[in-house]
């Protein structure tokens, strides 16, 4: 895709420029965004604070006292001009995530089946037979936005969010699916749970070493993700815990 001329740049804050690609959830376009992010991390390293990618956008936080926005703009335009066309997914690494899709733990499984006029088995098949693309990290530490859900599973988020869901909850909403890495409020529909952790801490957190790489996520932006259905027994073997919804 050679649509680099469609990238818009907006200097939205004292130290941030937002780059926007055409508004769509597209793994090929997103791969170009990630490629671009890697390029600027190399060529603009000395003026960068951080960069954050999302579905069709990328923000660059920079030291505005080290480079003017006009100079930065020049540098970015040069890089954009040399962005290669991408026509296929080259990142073929697939991260597999085991999921127990049980009615006891998939709090909204029956509701989703009802709303989508599918059987529970079909919901599980559709969800687990799709390969997803990781578009963004955000919301809570390790929360990774995955898309796109098959059309037949797409439905609006819950009308009122739950105050708390267990860590590992696998959820869907609109075109997206995700795993809640920690127990948190949740507006998406819960269809299962994974026993594995979404992030790890490399060092013992009690050691007070200031190290940026202490935290790593299971999924990183740009990767391909697939969910593997597992049995209740396998889920428990892997350390999963059955937490049923408290009905008040």
């Amino acid at each position, binding site marked *: 895709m050679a649509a680099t001329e469609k990238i818009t740049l*907006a*200097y*939205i*804050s*004292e*130290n*941030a420029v*937002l780059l*926007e690609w055409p*508004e769509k*959830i597209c793994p090929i376009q997103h791969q170009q965004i990630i490629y671009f992010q890697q390029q600027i991390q190399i060529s603009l390293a000395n003026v960068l*604070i*951080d*960069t*954050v*990618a*999302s*579905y*069709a*956008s*990328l*923000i660059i*936080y920079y030291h*505005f*006292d080290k480079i003017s*926005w006009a100079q930065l703009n020049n540098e970015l335009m040069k890089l954009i001009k040399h962005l290669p066309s991408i026509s296929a997914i080259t990142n073929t690494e697939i991260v597999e995530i085991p999921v127990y899709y049980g009615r006891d733990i998939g709090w909204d499984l029956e509701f989703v089946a009802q709303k989508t006029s599918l059987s529970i088995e079909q919901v599980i098949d559709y969800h687990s037979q799709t390969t997803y693309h990781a578009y*963004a*990290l*955000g*919301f*809570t*530490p*390790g*929360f990774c*936005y995955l898309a796109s859900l098959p059309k037949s599973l797409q439905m609006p988020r819950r009308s009122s969010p739950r105050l708390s869901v267990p860590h590992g909850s696998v959820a869907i909403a609109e075109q997206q699916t995700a795993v809640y890495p*920690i127990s948190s409020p949740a507006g998406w529909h819960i269809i299962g749970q994974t026993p594995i952790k979404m992030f790890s801490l490399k060092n013992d*957190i*009690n050691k*007070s*070493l*200031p190290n*940026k790489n*202490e*935290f790593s*996520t299971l999924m990183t*932006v740009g990767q391909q993700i697939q969910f593997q259905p597992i049995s209740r027994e396998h889920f428990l073997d892997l350390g999963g815990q059955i937490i049923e919804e408290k009905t008040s």
Partner: protein
Amino acid sequence: MNFLNIFKMKGQCSIQDLGRLHSQHLGFSASGAADEYAFLSANQMLGNERNNAALEIIFGELSVVSHNNCTIAITGANCFATINGKKVEHWQTHQLNTGDVLSLSTPKYGLISYLAIANGIKSKPWLDSRSQTLNEQKLGFNGETIRVGSKLYFNDQPSQPPNINHSKQLSPENFYQAAPLTLRFIPQLLWQQLSTEQQTVFQQHYTISANSNRMGYRLSQSPQSILVHLPPGSRLSKPVPYGTIQIPENGEPIILMKERQTIGGYPVLGTVIQTDLFRLSQRRPGEKVQLRVTTLVHAQQQLNAFHQRFKP
């Protein structure tokens, strides 16, 4: 190790420095001191590094007993500090000796006060920062939530009293404006797409809502206000910088503060300039604010001048 022991506390207290500026790509909120003016002033008075951690006290009462000798500074909202029951000056440094009791009361004006210690508070760092974030507190990444019984650790104190550059002495009354606060913002595309009438609606006087916190400030409009129907636009979540003005369906702006999420999906009007965000963080629910357009160049000049004051 040396420490101050908290034996009485109300309100919300947390350890803050300038935040985790390099970890937003992992989904971590930048966090950091809400009012950089008061925070940096405290460090400057003590001859500290800019990024030394201090205690941020939001509308609280606090009493600590000092287990060692140390030099402290108190800045931000005036919290009527006393040492052993005797009134002491605000925006000043003070000496605490072993056994001394420092007490802070709820401020009459403003919201946030800082208690800084020479050489900074020592706590468990996380992502190159000591800033604590409410949403992550239960994960225990950077130490326990500050409560009665918590200890504020510090290193051995400098043998020389801090050398304060008096030519750069601060005049906080010049920084914090009289009410109502004008929030200058850098407009985004959505602003340009609005009619003049619609733009006028967003420049009304808003009231700060009680649902405001370190993550975001919600603004309420008067019930008579017109609801602006925004033109259709991007609805996919995008990265959101400090000061982002989100417009949810009810038309009432949310201004994203230090503990904001890294990406967000609401339509965005623009970005409030950082120097005005520091001022906003001291404003209470019920107070009035107004939005006004400015330019990127002006915003950068303001922030640059702000940083110049705190250059060593």
